[in-house]
């Protein structure tokens, strides 16, 4: 589904360019869940931004093939229509735009790109009701403006609700666990687990192992300084939980010698 080869990217800041990704290699197949862990500043969120086409990031080398297409050639909205979804670390508030209107517009744009008829209001409302239950979204939240006045937990649940509505093939969850208490975490993880299938895949970016108790990954990758420095099974996450990222310092020392 997704093949990332030697991906290098920099960000353009007012103080000059900064190289963040320094050669990422990753393959994701349908039905798989990949966790990407690593200390702050290792480039996890940058990877999410590059994959979804956020402005301000420049790919300097490498390629990303998604479903046989050169992903980096596509605009953010085209990537979304092809089935890529990002659950934001910091969901954006959009005053004046209701959740209902926002999702209806999004769904119909995606359908239009596939040559499908727009969804009728009845179908849409039915779908919304069903999916809202997945992550305990109150009907009242749907008519409110997108994320405006939502608590941190509500915003994260709303991201997973949008994911459920748009039915993407590849979902990237960027620190979805940050700022969630244990009950909210269980709700969010429960929603994700119900949405998993053999046809879709998840990339779960997280700083802590906690979330991976509930969303169990097939692979765990450790990122450090813009590279994946270790890959393992779900047990790697537990090891990190116990020993922290100390092994990275060992790697570094070795590298320096």
């Amino acid at each position, binding site marked *: 589904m997704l093949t990332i080869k030697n991906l290098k990217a920099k960000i353009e800041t007012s103080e000059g360019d900064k190289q963040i990704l320094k050669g990422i290699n990753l393959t994701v197949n349908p039905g798989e869940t990949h966790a990407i862990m690593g200390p702050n500043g290792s480039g996890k969120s940058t990877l999410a931004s590059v994959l*979804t*086409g956020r402005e301000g990031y420049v790919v300097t080398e490498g390629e990303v093939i998604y479903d046989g297409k050169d992903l980096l050639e596509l605009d953010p909205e085209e990537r*979304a229509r092809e089935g890529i*979804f990002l659950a934001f670390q910091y969901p954006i508030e*959009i005053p*004046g*735009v209701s959740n209902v209107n926002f999702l209806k517009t*999004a769904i119909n744009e995606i359908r239009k790109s596939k040559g499908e008829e727009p969804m009728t209001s009845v179908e849409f409302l039915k779908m919304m009701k069903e999916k809202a239950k997945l992550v305990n979204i109150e009907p009242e939240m749907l008519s409110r403006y997108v994320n405006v006045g939502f608590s941190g937990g509500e915003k994260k649940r709303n991201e997973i609700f*949008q994911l459920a509505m*748009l039915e993407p093939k590849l979902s990237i969850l960027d620190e979805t666990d940050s700022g969630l208490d244990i009950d909210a975490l269980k709700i969010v993880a429960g929603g994700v687990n119900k949405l998993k299938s053999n046809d879709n895949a998840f990339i779960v970016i997280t700083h802590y192992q906690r979330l991976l108790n509930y969303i169990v990954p097939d692979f765990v990758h450790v990122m450090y300084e813009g590279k994946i420095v270790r890959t393992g099974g779900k047990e790697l996450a537990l090891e990190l939980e116990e020993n922290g990222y100390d092994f990275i310092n060992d790697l570094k020392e070795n590298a320096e010698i």
Partner: protein
Amino acid sequence: MENNLKENKTGIDLTKKLINEFQSYQSKLNGDASGNLNKLRMDAMSVFEKTGFPVKKMEEWKYTNLSPVMNHDFKFSSDLSDSDITQADIDKYIFSAGSVNLLVFINGIFSSELSSVISNNESIFIGSISEGMTSHKEIFDKHYSKYADYNNRSLAALNTAFFPEGAFIYLKKNTELNTPVHILNISDTKVNSVFSQPRNLVVIEEGSKIFIAEDYYSAGDNSSFTNMVTEFYCGKNSHTEHYKIQNEDERSFHVGMTQVHQEQDSHFSNTTISWGGSIIRNDLNSVFDGTNTESHFFGLYLLSGKQHVDNHTLADHKMPNCFSNELYKGIIGDNATGVFNGKIMVREDAQKTNAYQSNGNILLSDDATIYSKPQLEIFADDVKCSHGATSGQLNEDEMFYIKSRGIGDKDAKSLLLKAFVSDVLDSIKIEEFKVNIEEKMEMKLKNILK
């Protein structure tokens, strides 16, 4: 010298033409010439003759240049033959098939055939000013030209001097009129460029309530120039909702003054929306002549091409305990220009005044311009006043968030722009009219985001 040559290039001097027109009009008046109304006209004309059209060196006209208007060979209402605008044409402009009191003016002339008034009774008069000034003479004499002071305002003087036609609306004490009034103004420019000067008088007596939509269209390929004046008298504890919508085409010029006089405990709300027209100047002034009055000014300008829209407002707090709130928003694209000048005057006696003002703008291109100027003049010491002005581009984080859900660039912009102006549109309390406005906005946004 050079300047003179330029002005004479087209061979047209609108000011001179208007003076001649006024003289020939006076010569046809016969016996009416000595009446009070004609004295007023002559006085107003002398003010116009002295000052002429406003020019940019006047502080109040710093950003708005009317000289492009002067190059057109406008015909006056009195010179025009009958318009061929039909009922079928009118249907395009009305927002409600149901109950509405419709007054239609074509090139400033009242059309009784195309108008339909359903609410008139002994407490309500909705009609033309020429009929109303006779049938409700006492009311007319008491209020006409008592609020729109034309000294130092040459355009209002010009309007007062000619005074051909307009709407007259009168609600007697304690009359609640829930059927809206629609004043539809059309410039028929199919054959000629047209100059019209609508003059409306609205008198809402104590305890009465009204909804008025006043809108402007042009039909045809020539230019139009509208110089309108609407006067409002809002009696004690009355409630007025007024909407002014400018839908003219890109060959149209529009200058206008809405002058409001508010008595104690009255509530007045105005929403001014400008998306048509080439050069537009709106003056909205409300004078609070009683305690505890409330006034709301909402505005929206949605500009593309080379459009120029100038909104000047004044909330004149003369008495204590009054409240005014103002919210104007603009979306400006291409090479268009917006001007917002919001003045809040708090006079010495106006203690416990609450006055708020906000102007927000989104500029969609590097060549779009906004001049935004709050102007607070406060002479009382126990008041609460605030103002704020913003201008900027669409928020990039919001844009990315929306696009990341599959929504394309134009639709994402449109979604955000509609959200940006939603609080202004929410001020429109006639539901069918609001729906109509939203449809028009959709079209205008498509045009701006083309």
